[in-house]
């Protein structure tokens, strides 16, 4: 078979990493801008504050990246997180479990939510949007029912709040929660990039039918992927509860859109098949930095969402232009 000899398509092979570097560049641009705009922005405590603000949404976005790469979507992460927080309260306060058991239980509960989503999507074949929208409503209702519509406080475990707030660097106020977020980022990156789960996520998102024809048990792997996303939801729920030293039974709606936005800003395609954890983290940071920066520079609050909306549009557009040129 004769064919044209061509040079190795280096451009194509570098595409992944170049993309992340450039999304990072736009993050840095925003950082630099705000550093000039306000003297309070680029201070250690504010930067840690940004990381803390990014932690919960970021962890949700990490898990969702798996689902989106696999061509699905998960709308239940916001209220699911709330429900996991409530379950933490139930385990620790109502049932008096020790902290380690309660935390593990709540994370596994998140996994269960994800598993049910996965079951609805892969075994019953419901469209992911509907399956997880249903779960979103169910979880938001269950949070109220289980908690009796009242916040649950961790009176038995006053130290539970340290999970998020404990300062890992003495004196420097670098909270444990942020360290957990960074660790999870690495874990998620490895799982998505280097393991069989990640490979099948990309494969299913790229062409589910072909993946199934290749003998991959698509049903099982989709279950796994949604369950992974659920575990991240569980972790986020525990950390949110720890940060607030209470399990709040309301809220969470809208958080799913924020997390999905972070994923997509990070270059993951909602079509499935393409994406990266590094991108997601950068996406989550862009949103967090922007929100914080606007507050620190005291932009009137009614303008803030206008600016955030525009920046998201511009950031994704620039990212696309660049990718088209590459």
């Amino acid at each position, binding site marked *: *078979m*004769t*064919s*044209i*000899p*061509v*040079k*190795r*398509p280096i*451009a*194509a*092979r570098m595409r992944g990493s170049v993309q992340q570097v450039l999304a990072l560049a736009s993050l840095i641009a925003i950082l630099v801008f705000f550093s000039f705009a306000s003297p309070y922005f680029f201070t250690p405590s504010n930067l840690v504050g940004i990381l803390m603000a990014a932690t919960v949404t970021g962890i949700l976005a990490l898990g969702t990246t798996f689902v989106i790469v696999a061509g699905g979507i998960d709308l239940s992460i916001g209220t699911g997180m709330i429900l996991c927080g409530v379950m933490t309260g139930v385990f620790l306060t109502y049932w008096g479990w020790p902290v380690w058991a309660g935390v593990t239980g709540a994370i596994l509960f998140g996994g269960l939510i994800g598993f049910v989503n996965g079951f609805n999507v892969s075994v019953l074949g419901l469209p992911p949007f509907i399956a997880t929208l249903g779960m979103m409503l169910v979880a938001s209702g269950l949070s109220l029912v289980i908690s009796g519509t009242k916040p649950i406080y961790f009176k038995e475990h006053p130290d539970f709040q340290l999970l998020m707030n404990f300062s890992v660097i003495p004196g420097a106020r670098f909270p444990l929660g942020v360290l957990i977020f960074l660790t999870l980022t690495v874990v998620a990156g490895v799982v998505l990039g*280097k*393991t*069989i*789960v990640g*490979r099948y996520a*990309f*494969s299913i*998102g*790229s*062409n589910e*039918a*072909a*993946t*199934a*024809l*290749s*003998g*991959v*048990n698509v049903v099982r792997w989709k279950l796994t992927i949604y369950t992974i996303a659920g575990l991240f939801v569980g972790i986020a729920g525990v950390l949110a509860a720890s940060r607030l030293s209470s399990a709040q039974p309301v809220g969470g709606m809208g958080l799913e859109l924020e997390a999905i936005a972070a994923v997509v800003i990070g270059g993951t395609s909602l079509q499935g*098949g*393409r994406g990266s954890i590094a991108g997601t983290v950068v996406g989550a940071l862009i949103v967090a930095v922007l929100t914080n920066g606007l507050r620190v520079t005291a932009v009137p609050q009614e303008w803030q969402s206008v600016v955030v909306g525009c920046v998201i549009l511009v950031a994704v557009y620039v990212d696309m232009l660049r990718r088209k040129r590459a």
Partner: protein
Amino acid sequence: MAALLRVSGASKRFPGVQALDGVDLELRHGEVLALVGENGAGKSTLMKLLSGIDRPDEGEFFLDGSQYTPGNPRHAQELGISIIHQELNLMPDLTVAQNIFIGREPRVGGFVLSERALNRRTRELLARLGLPLEPTDLIGDLTVARQQMVEIAKALSFNARVLVMDEPTAALNETEVDTLFGLIRRFVTPATGVIYISHRMHELAQITDRITVLRDGRHVGTLDTATSTVPEVISLMVGRAITGEQRPRAAAATGDPVLSVRGLRTRALLRDVSFEVRRGEILGFAGLMGAGRTEVARAIVGADRKEGGTVAVHGREVAIAGPADAARAGIGYLSEDRKRYGVLLGRSVRDNVVLASMPRFTSPLGLVADRLIGRTATEYVDRLRIRTPSTGQLVQHLSGGNQQKTVVAKWLVRDCDVLIFDEPTRGIDVGAKDEIYALLDELAAAGKAIVMISSELPEVLRMSHRIAVMCQGRITAILDNTDATQENIMDYATRFNAEAAEGTVTT
């Protein structure tokens, strides 16, 4: 000794269609068995039953004499049946290596992948098969032909006993077909066998031992290749005689140029492509895989960006930014990639047929004339013999060849002055091919200018008044039909430019 694979009384019914009706088939050890039949005869359906994708309504399968009931594709693979499906089944976002070994990735310690080992094994496999592919290339960046090679490599990477190939050569040209045949010959041992599905009759003599013919979902006969002739096979297939191959009629047309392309360039590949097509003329495009024929067409209709060059219709230069502009200027383009750029799989035959001509079926108020659409669709379904229970059938339920006919019909309805057909007969059966040839002739006679890109040299030679040969993004010759032979076309198609070979193709 029992046959390697035996099918007994297989039946399969889809809503409105009896796709298979009690088919028997026997594959012996060490043979290549051709499976032929018209579009929609049921060949692909039978293979889907064999691989466990669909379940038969009736019938049994035996592998080496023992009953075999495939539960799913993986199960079939484990039992040693490896299939290349008619529709490509690849993951465009994964690399060549990742696609070939999907589900069988080399791992270190359970879950962690070893990308290094994966690429090494792929490189070994590709070297063994002599396929010029890079393990780390993304599938989505490859042409259909190259994707087909990946499918072939994947099928051969299993330790299969039975290899089924459903039209593997539809996207390949002669040279590549030869490579494939080499692979098949090396694959066949006394313990293995191949089922080979193709609409290219002349290939059968080269590679197969016996030929099984299906018609309307029934087994109508099995012939020894050595003792039968092509017309014999064809008449079994279609139930009537077909004249078969012939050189074209009349000399080159002499009308005014309808389409003139000057100095066309693209960033990736094309260099100074210039040609014109006259009224009533069919201009064939020949070349090796990746020579750039498709790219010429896509650049003309504005599907890809042009770096330079002009396109004129009827002598007037037209600015074409996208296919819509091209269509307005009277240029229609039928893509070689049916699934991606041709059909709307989820819509009806009717919707597909009129898609390019909707304004014609729309009242000034914007209301569509469904009655007229129905009538037109029926007319073309009859004319092209598209096998479908109704014009309302979803295209995804048609056989591959009938889908292709639907796309052809779409452009016939549109009635453009310039028609660019890229591999128009891909996957179309012999009978229908003749009909499409006749149609092209008719169109040319009616004054259209036609560009026909084809990887089948006999087809190019038979249909074209003139033949443009491409190599590495350049037109190396434009031959008159009378001067053209397979040999001199191949010669021009391999005029590699040393300098271009190193540099110009990339970036």
